[in-house]
């Protein structure tokens, strides 16, 4: 049996009330639909939730940041390829955006 692909993401908007969570939800649903194991960290007004661990990052096939601010603990991502997308793309076109990232990764191989 092949191991499921894993997608992790971090979402954070300026005020941390609405767009952070809308983006997180859209990405989560789209990634599941595309067959990924998924974990999404949110940095919102309620603090850091569902924090991505070093292991999460090491295991991930795709790492996404949908942020409008510089996230906390951003140095975790230093040694990884991070795909930066807008919160708007995450909310409005999560599935299309993940597919574009898949194509980019495929073309680099």
């Amino acid at each position, binding site marked *: 049996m092949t191991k499921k692909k894993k997608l992790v993401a971090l979402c954070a908007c*300026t*005020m941390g*009330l*609405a*767009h*952070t*969570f*809308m983006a*997180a*939800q*859209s990405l989560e*649903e789209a990634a599941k639909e595309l067959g990924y194991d998924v974990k999404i960290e*949110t940095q*919102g*007004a*309620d*603090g850091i939730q569902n924090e991505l661990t070093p292991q999460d990052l090491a295991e991930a096939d795709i790492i996404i940041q949908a942020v409008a601010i510089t996230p906390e603990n951003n140095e975790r991502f230093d040694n990884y390829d991070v795909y930066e997308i807008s919160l*708007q793309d995450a*909310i*409005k076109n999560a599935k299309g955006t993940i597919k574009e990232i898949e194509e980019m990764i495929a073309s680099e191989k």
Partner: protein
Amino acid sequence: MQKDSVFKREYVFLDVDVSTKEECLAFIAKKAVKLGISTSEKGTIDGFMERENEGSTGFDDGFAIPHTRCEDVIRPSVMVVKTKNGIDWPSMDGKPIVVVFALLVPKEVESTVHLKLISSLARKLVSADFQSTMLNSSDPDEIFGIVEKALNN
């Protein structure tokens, strides 16, 4: 209903006759003061507009989520407005805004309990089922029920 609930039946307003974003936010601010959510109409409007000026909170399919964290707000609250006619309010798909979820949060919050409720609602906003019920329903009790459920999801 708990006294400190973020959302109550009287926070739902249907058939609201406003035609611009400014009118809509003024309506919300006025009601917020009346309901004891905020202490200042002007402060609340300014709070919303500060966020709108960073980028419109209109998104897809007729929904907008103006929000503010300002010192005039004294109780974290969610208010729901359905407009009589769509409002010209910049959105991601250019459609007029019909359903407005206003999120009002004090500058200083003692606990994250209310913020968690609001984040659950924000997650629900991207659900197609939730959106279509909100758009199609003109029954205030039904709207109250599904928003209440989304908050406590």
